[in-house]
């Protein structure tokens, strides 16, 4: 446990920071064991907070406060298996830990060094128990450079961050590098923005640096509007100081003295931790005037977003920070030159900024070695959908989709067949099976008709209908369109209507052409990136699954058995033994029994296609066509 309390210190030089860190590390070594309890949003939902308190109480009642620390951390990524407890330094991972397991863990594992088998992880379909966190397949192929610290530090403790080397990059930049050096380092590292567009971070900083203006801003984009994505939230919740440090370095490089963190309003924990981190950094002399005793000053404020997807777009975000309606404007002059209140502004994503201290600490060459020719470093993805291990993963660029889905994700549940993976969020694209060996990076994904986006990855199996999927994303985008420009406002509505019609069985000759025309008009003609990429879900599903569209339109059939108006449930007489399970399950009495050993009869005119009979039948006697 840290004996030196941060609130009492102010660090006035590089040396004072280093001495403070040495002191912290000396003190941590004195206490041998750490019980880390994940208190990220996922694990909290499973009761992690009560669990952590129980550990504290138990440690106290067994009189081990001096030897054992209980640490609450941010998300470790493997939320699927939460609440997670990791015992360090052995890194023993206990998953799905319950309140009742606490005493046993303290007595057995902490006091007697015995591993409790029952709480260990074993991969789906295997009985082998895995003890160490790093040996769990979910973590094994990951490269957790940015996200890894989440599992080790308490996000509310500045000392925890300093102890693992926090703010060393800042002091290196301030005292050993010129602003140009910093920009060169970032440029040579090859870092590209993780917010979606993949714009070269160094080049962006350079153009802001070059503008002659006494007032410049650095903004951190923590809007994260993509449904299903939560990497920015997890970073902000779990390691807020790394983002502040990234912002400080950016500000030093471009000559900014003020900054904002734009946090979506649905992220209360991220907001709370960011606020606390700002306060701590300020009082420690790491933020504000004369940082670490240098001549550099920089201050950060928090701006809360209302939670509109479009507010993540740079010009809309800045309008929102300025207190205006969050609506995009044409960006023929870049915000890096004319941004917030018309002053040069660097806008970076949370994950982009979290990479910055690593690059400064370890050097551009180190970073450049990781990844592919034009996409360097790692990327955090949120892996969700029809995959066994859902969660947040951090992988080196260039890893294949197959490795992500099968090795890390543990494959498709229930023995189903993989169909597609949607990458890049709502405006990304769906990639089919023959793209599984694609090396995931900015360019390869775009070439295949999808995109990196912010990193949401949704896995789909044979039970997903691609027309239905396209409609789902499109209607999300329609709902999020700001409505300013014609192609987006009117075009998305028309596209959704056409898809509605196809799904309802009223698809017409020419629908595919009209959808393509509208998608292209959006791509070329929309004002902002929302409309500009909104055609992707349709274009990419058309590109890889046109046959499914045709089945809907021409044959009035939904091959995946999803679109209700196009499917029927039928009894396969040869399989049906008349067990009558379906008769009981049917909510509208559409199935009647013909007596034992006789196949049941399904009345299509009464059937509402709820699927209950299909779900209960154990003999595959109900088919959906």
């Amino acid at each position, binding site marked *: 446990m840290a004996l030196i309390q941060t609130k009492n210190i102010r660090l006035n030089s590089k040396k004072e920071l280093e001495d403070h860190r040495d002191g912290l590390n000396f003190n941590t070594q004195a206490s041998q064991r750490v019980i880390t309890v994940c208190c990220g949003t996922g694990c909290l939902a499973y009761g992690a907070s009560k669990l952590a308190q129980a550990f504290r109480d138990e440690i106290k009642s067994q009189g081990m406060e001096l030897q054992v620390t209980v640490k609450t951390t941010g998300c470790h990524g493997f939320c699927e298996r939460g609440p997670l407890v990791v015992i360090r330094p052995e890194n023993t991972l206990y998953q799905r830990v319950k309140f009742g397991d606490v005493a046993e863990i303290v007595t057995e594992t902490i006091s007697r060094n015995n591993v409790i088998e029952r709480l260990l992880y074993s991969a789906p379909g295997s009985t082998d128990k895995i003890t160490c966190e790093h040996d769990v397949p979910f973590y094994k192929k990951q490269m957790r450079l940015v996200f890894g610290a989440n599992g080790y530090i308490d996000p509310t403790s500045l000392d925890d961050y300093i102890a693992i080397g926090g703010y060393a990059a800042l002091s290196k930049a301030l005292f050993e590098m010129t602003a140009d050096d910093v920009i060169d380092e970032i440029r040579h590292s090859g870092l590209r923005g993780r917010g979606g567009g993949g714009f070269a971070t160094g080049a962006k900083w350079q153009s802001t640096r070059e503008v002659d203006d006494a007032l410049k801003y650095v903004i951190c984009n923590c809007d994260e509007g993509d449904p299903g994505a939560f990497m920015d939230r997890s970073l902000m919740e779990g390691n807020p100081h790394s983002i502040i440090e990234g912002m400080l370095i950016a500000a030093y490089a471009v000559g900014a003295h003020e900054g904002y963190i734009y946090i979506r309003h649905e992220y209360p924990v991220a907001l709370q931790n960011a606020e606390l981190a700002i306060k701590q950094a300020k009082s420690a002399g790491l933020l504000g005037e004369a940082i670490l005793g240098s001549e550099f000053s920089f201050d950060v404020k928090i701006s809360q977003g209302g939670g*509109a997807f479009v507010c993540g777009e740079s010009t809309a975000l800045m309008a929102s920070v300025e207190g205006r309606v969050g609506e995009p*404007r*044409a960006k*023929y*002059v870049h915000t890096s030159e004319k941004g917030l209140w018309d002053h040069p502004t660097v806008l970076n994503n949370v994950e982009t900024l979290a990479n910055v201290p690593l690059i400064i600490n370890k050097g551009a060459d180190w970073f450049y070695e990781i990844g592919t020719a034009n996409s360097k470093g790692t990327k955090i993805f949120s892996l969700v959908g029809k995959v066994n291990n859902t969660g947040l993963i951090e992988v080196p660029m260039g890893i294949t989709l197959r490795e992500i889905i099968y090795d890390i994700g543990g494959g498709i549940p229930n023995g189903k067949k993989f169909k597609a993976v949607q990458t890049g969020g709502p405006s990304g694209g769906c990639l089919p099976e023959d793209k599984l060996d694609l090396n995931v990076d900015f360019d390869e994904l775009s070439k295949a008709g999808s995109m990196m986006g912010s990193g949401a990855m949704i896995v789909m199996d044979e039970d997903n209908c691609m027309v239905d999927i396209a409609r789902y994303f499109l209607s999300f985008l*329609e*709902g*999020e*369109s*700001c*409505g*300013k*420009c*014609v*192609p987006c*406002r*009117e*075009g*998305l*509505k*028309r596209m959704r*209507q056409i898809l509605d019609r196809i799904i309802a069985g009223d698809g017409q000759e*020419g629908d595919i052409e*009209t959808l393509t*025309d*509208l998608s*292209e*008009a959006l791509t*070329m*003609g*929309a*004002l902002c990136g929302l409309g500009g990429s909104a055609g992707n879900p349709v274009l990419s599903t058309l590109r890889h699954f046109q046959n499914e569209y045709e089945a809907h339109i021409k044959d009035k059939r939904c091959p995946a058995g999803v679109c209700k108006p196009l499917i029927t449930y039928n009894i396969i007489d040869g399989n049906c033994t008349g067990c009558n399970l379906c008769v009981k399950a049917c909510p509208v009495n559409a199935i009647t029994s013909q007596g034992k050993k006789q196949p049941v009869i399904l009345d299509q005119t009464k059937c509402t296609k709820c699927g209950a009979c299909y779900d209960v039948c154990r003999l595959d006697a109900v088919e959906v066509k």
Partner: protein
Amino acid sequence: MVKLTINGRVFQAQPCDTVLAVAQKAGINIPTLCHSEAVHDYGACRICLVEVERRGRKRLVTACLYPVEEGLSVTTDSERVTKVRQIVIELLLARTPTSEEILALAERYDVTESRFSDMEGNNGDKCILCGLCTRVCSDVVGVNAISLVNRGTKREVALPFYDDETACIACGSCAYICPTSAITLTDSADCRTITWPNSKADFPMKECSSCGTHYAPVKQLQYMAEKAHLSISEFDYCPDCRH
């Protein structure tokens, strides 16, 4: 001055000029719906799209907002431009099938019918949400009496709460600037009625103390008096009787 080409012809222009301004001066026609010299440009209708080429990269941009630059090459009627423009017209046509202005534009660009005309959500009013009315009311008149409310497909032009006309001075600028006649103004004896796409309001007219004609909305005169620090009695007489 910078040099650029539009449709192959060479032009000189100020770096702050827009492509639209240069083209218009040269008599090259680029259609516009949401542009007016009276207000700041907004880039919403996307009808003024042109293709620009810069360092070998081609893309579509809105002429009303794009600043010219050295070496820029502009094509105002490339195949891509025409295609997107036609779809924009088709979309607008489905929305406002009765607007003469949109029908005329459709004819000019060979859009004979809209593939979307029989779908739900064709509201049949004339507003294309170009925002000219709201911009003139705030930028020029300075009162912000109307605004664009709601997002996405629910967007519309409206008074606050759809019926609060207190801020409106009945000047009629919005009706004048509206490209599709979606806002109308009618004067009858002592009353001016303004009809916006979603609301309507009556405003009393000032009677000339001498000749008795109703010559201007009372609220407009009050507003002018206030702005110019004049006494309202300055407006007792109509312009004809004032001399």
